[in-house]
């Protein structure tokens, strides 16, 4: 009986740790995807400025409130605009950026195919 008790307690503690580890992981992932607005060329994760420290706290709280990664991004986007996200969103201003590699790839493919058939 006692053994089962101890086992259960240990299992619960371990489970909590897993949960926490996951939270920290997403926390860091989100912080790495955010631009620190007052320090040039640094992510919020890398920065130790007052702004970044507070922002990390906010992310932690939001995760504990049960918000998803997407919801946190959209919350911050609402507050600070798209500039805070490192990963640009697909919209009218950025579609050139997103489609250019595909266009180049297709053009290259077309050239290769054309040469191949010409040789034949």
């Amino acid at each position, binding site marked *: 009986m006692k053994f089962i008790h101890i086992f259960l307690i240990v299992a619960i503690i371990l489970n909590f740790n897993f949960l926490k580890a996951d939270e920290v992981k997403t926390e860091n992932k989100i912080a790495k995807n955010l631009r620190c*607005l007052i320090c040039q060329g640094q992510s919020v994760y890398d920065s130790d400025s007052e702004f970044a420290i*507070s922002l990390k706290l906010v992310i932690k709280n939001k995760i504990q409130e049960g918000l998803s990664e997407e919801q946190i991004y959209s919350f911050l986007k609402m507050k600070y605009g798209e500039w805070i996200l490192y990963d640009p969103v697909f919209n009218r201003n950025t579609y050139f950026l997103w489609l250019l590699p595909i266009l180049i790839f297709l053009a290259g493919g077309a050239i290769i195919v054309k040469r191949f058939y010409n040789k034949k």
Partner: protein
Amino acid sequence: MKSKFIPLILILFFLITFVIFFKGLRNSNIYIPDTNLKKAVPSFELKSFENGSIVISEKIFEDNDYYFMNIWASWCIPCKEEHEFLMELKKDDRIELIGFNYKDNYTNASSFLKDLGNPYDIIVSDKNGIASIDWGAYGVPESFLVYQNKIIKRFIGPINNEDLLEIQKIIR
């Protein structure tokens, strides 16, 4: 045909590269937030600076008057610079000044106010900076002009004489 085609592509390539860099390098990559916004006041629940009682935002912005919400800290040097303008603004009774004491300790902040004067009607302390993020603030000092529960203007950095005149013009 081939000899004509390659220089054309090269020229096109350099032209596109030139245009992209020409436009891209001219863009400022410093964060510049929108200063003329019509956003609702974010709600907060913070401790009062003087006695530690809980202050809720709905209570502060209850009367639909003009409010000047100023984020400050005693460790922030530009805040000293703008202080005289806040004292000037205090003389105007059409506007209420709300101080957001940002990540500060009580002793330093109160001696700061004792030395330079206290322009604020209400001071709340934002110990961990979370409430400031709700306002979209990213540094100290930063100020928001609030009217009818909406942020109508935002001031990044210390306010100066021009800003003061602008505020006085708006609230007239």
